[in-house]
């Protein structure tokens, strides 16, 4: 079994919901997610943010669905950290 422990995503989002509400919305996609948001660029109606999500077993589809549900658009997966059931971590 392979578990995703960490994701770094490049996301374009509207100004609303704000960073805090956006992180909360994504955190509710999983039971133990830690979400960190860094604003990279700010435009008139949108902002590009970097999302760092950590968890024991991140469900990428539910994270993506939460992002889209909040009006965001996933641009790229910049970094992932996964590990097998034997807890051997590998970074791609």
């Amino acid at each position, binding site marked *: 079994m392979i578990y995703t422990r960490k994701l770094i995503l490049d996301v*374009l989002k*509207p100004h*609303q919901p704000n960073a805090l*509400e956006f992180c909360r919305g994504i955190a509710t996609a999983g039971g133990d997610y830690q979400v960190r948001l860094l604003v990279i660029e700010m*435009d008139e*109606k949108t902002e590009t943010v970097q999302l760092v999500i950590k968890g024991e077993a991140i469900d990428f589809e539910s994270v993506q669905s939460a992002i*889209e*549900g909040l*009006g965001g658009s996933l641009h790229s997966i910049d970094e992932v950290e996964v590990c097998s059931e034997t807890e051997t971590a590998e970074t791609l």
Partner: protein
Amino acid sequence: MRLLSQIGFLLELTRSHDIVRRYFVVNGFDGALTMLGLIIGFQISESSDLRVVTNACLGATIALGMSGLSSAYVSESAERKRALNKLEKAMITDLQDSAHGTAARGIPVLIAVVNGSAPLIISLLIMLPLFAANNDIELPIPPLIAATVIALLLIFLLGVFLGRVAAVPWFRSGAQTLLLAIATAALIYLIAG
């Protein structure tokens, strides 16, 4: 509870708290003043048939409610669609299935309900003495006078509510709206009386 938190989230997302409050006060005030005008008009004309007065007021109440409901829905719906289209252009993506899409469809309904129910509820409250009199319930004062007093009280309370919003003394803002109502009544007496 979940529905309430969803509504709260959509209001926060679209920053619509102020608009909902404004619609409530504006149309509530419209309803109260219209009823006040109607009732004073009937007092001046000394119409003795209370059923005619009640039906005329009820007709105006329903019309005010429907007008508030439909006008707010049509205008807000157009505004929200426009805002969503702009956001979709900026995001270069379809937002119909996102919270923004839900808000663009749901917030106009909420605003329309507030805009329609504010004059409806306020007018029905003002009409309570008329309903009571029609059902042979004894009132200490004539029903039209009682309805006028309720109308003035509700207008005062709307002013108090505005005072709390603006963080100014409640008595002053209440007195301001009450003064407007009295001025309206005076105008009606002057012109029609």
